[in-house]
């Protein structure tokens, strides 16, 4: 049933946007982290969105019914924020510390954008839900 497919498509949107929020929250939480498992300061992460088809690839592309998925999580290789803090335990010989390349303003904007997109998909799911329940009432 195509309405169920519509719901699944929006559900894929919810999943993708939620992952984006998770990554962005991680960036914000670690905006001052100077030690990571990989060594060095934390690097900003970002999600990559790609269209995703459900099962019948050709038909889905033909009918314009593609969902979305997070294909990879990329690491932002932008330079670290170097601050002069000689007393910091992670300072180098010249007294500079590498702080994460996270920009809080950018992350906040990203979070708001993801929340809006999440809501849009949620609204669509609710409308599809009412369409389906109306369908079930046919002939009653």
């Amino acid at each position, binding site marked *: *049933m*195509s*309405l169920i*497919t*519509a*719901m699944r*498509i*929006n559900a*894929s*949107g919810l999943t*993708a*946007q939620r992952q*984006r929020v998770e990554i962005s929250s991680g960036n914000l939480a670690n905006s001052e982290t100077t030690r990571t498992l990989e060594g060095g300061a934390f690097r900003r992460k970002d999600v990559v*969105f*790609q*269209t995703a088809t459900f099962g019948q690839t050709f038909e889905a592309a*033909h*009918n*314009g*019914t*593609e*969902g*979305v998925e997070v294909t990879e999580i990329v690491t932002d290789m932008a330079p670290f924020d170097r601050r002069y803090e000689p007393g910091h335990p992670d300072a180098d010989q010249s007294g500079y510390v590498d702080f994460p390349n996270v920009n809080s303003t950018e992350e906040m904007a990203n979070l708001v*954008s*993801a929340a*809006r*997109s999440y809501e*849009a*998909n949620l*609204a*669509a799911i609710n*409308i*599809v839900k*009412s*369409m389906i329940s*109306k*369908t079930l*009432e*046919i*002939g*009653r």
Partner: protein
Amino acid sequence: MNVGDKMFPLVENALDWAAKRQQTISANLANIDTPGYKARDITFAEHLQSLALETTSPMHLNPFSQNGMRVYEVGAKDRGNGNTVDLDSEMTELSKNGLQYIALVQFLNQKIRTLRSAINDGGKG
């Protein structure tokens, strides 16, 4: 009115179209942040036109088939990353399509009610 009314397959087709259109709207909303994604819509114009015409040639569209539906890319403005989904217009179309679908269902229900009253009460007069 007869039970084999042509109205039923017509409404059924229109419902099917609205459901398919819902899929394209859902896909557009899901891909609102996908770089390079082009917003899509589904036409009903050819489908509608075909309803008024007699099919005298096999080349004509059959009003009771789904051949009249065609997916096309909406010529909207690129938002900078190759994505052309417009949130506001998609949300409007979302409500519009949902209401159209519900209206069709109500129409169908009314039709069934009329038919049922003819069956139940027709001979009582």
